[in-house]
């Protein structure tokens, strides 16, 4: 069975600081991995995805993620956060039928 763990429920960072959100997965085959962002009252927006090739994936809004098979991880990073990045972030695994992590709420301090 596939599963996703996001160990950090809530993270607070200062505007301009770097960010890393953790994601660990369990999947029986080569995983299809995704990061989504959900702003308050908004739908889900895909930030980036990985299913093969270069293990460092670039996404929208300046985000990137690195797939590490040996660690079963797919951590999301951003070198400098903006106040508009405050949102809920979900890591997910699967194709079509997705399994989501519990999410990490990101708060930005001015």
């Amino acid at each position, binding site marked *: 069975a596939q599963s996703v763990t996001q160990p950090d429920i809530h993270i607070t960072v200062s505007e301009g600081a770097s960010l890393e959100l953790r994601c660990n997965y369990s999947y029986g085959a080569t995983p299809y991995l995704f990061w989504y962002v959900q702003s308050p009252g908004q*739908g889900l927006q895909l930030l980036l995805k990985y299913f093969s090739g270069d293990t460092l994936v670039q996404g929208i809004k300046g985000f990137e993620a690195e797939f590490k098979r040996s660690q079963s991880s797919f951590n999301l990073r951003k070198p400098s956060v903006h106040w508009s990045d405050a949102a809920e972030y979900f890591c997910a695994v699967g194709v*079509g*039928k997705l399994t*989501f992590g*519990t999410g990490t709420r990101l708060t930005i301090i001015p």
Partner: protein
Amino acid sequence: SAVISQKPSRDICQRGTSLTIQCQVDSQVTMMFWYRQQPGQSLTLIATANQGSEATYESGFVIDKFPISRPNLTFSTLTVSNMSPEDSSIYLCSMEMNTEAFFGQGTRLTVV
């Protein structure tokens, strides 16, 4: 990419009643998916809807409570039946295209 139109965007319903949520996709897709997001929680898959066959429900979800229709390749509905306050959630439909999942904007349901 794909566009999914979901409606209603929100509703407040009386307990014991039913609500039908509609999703329209701008392209033909074989499978559509319905998720529930309870307050402060992550998304949980309710069922997978294939055109021309019965929906496949995940553990903890049953057809009598969440009947799904899939009359063609661009449309699906989810009904939340005999609602109780515990059904207050955001319900989202989704489809997959070229390994990417696209989501509707969600229906925020409050049961009073």
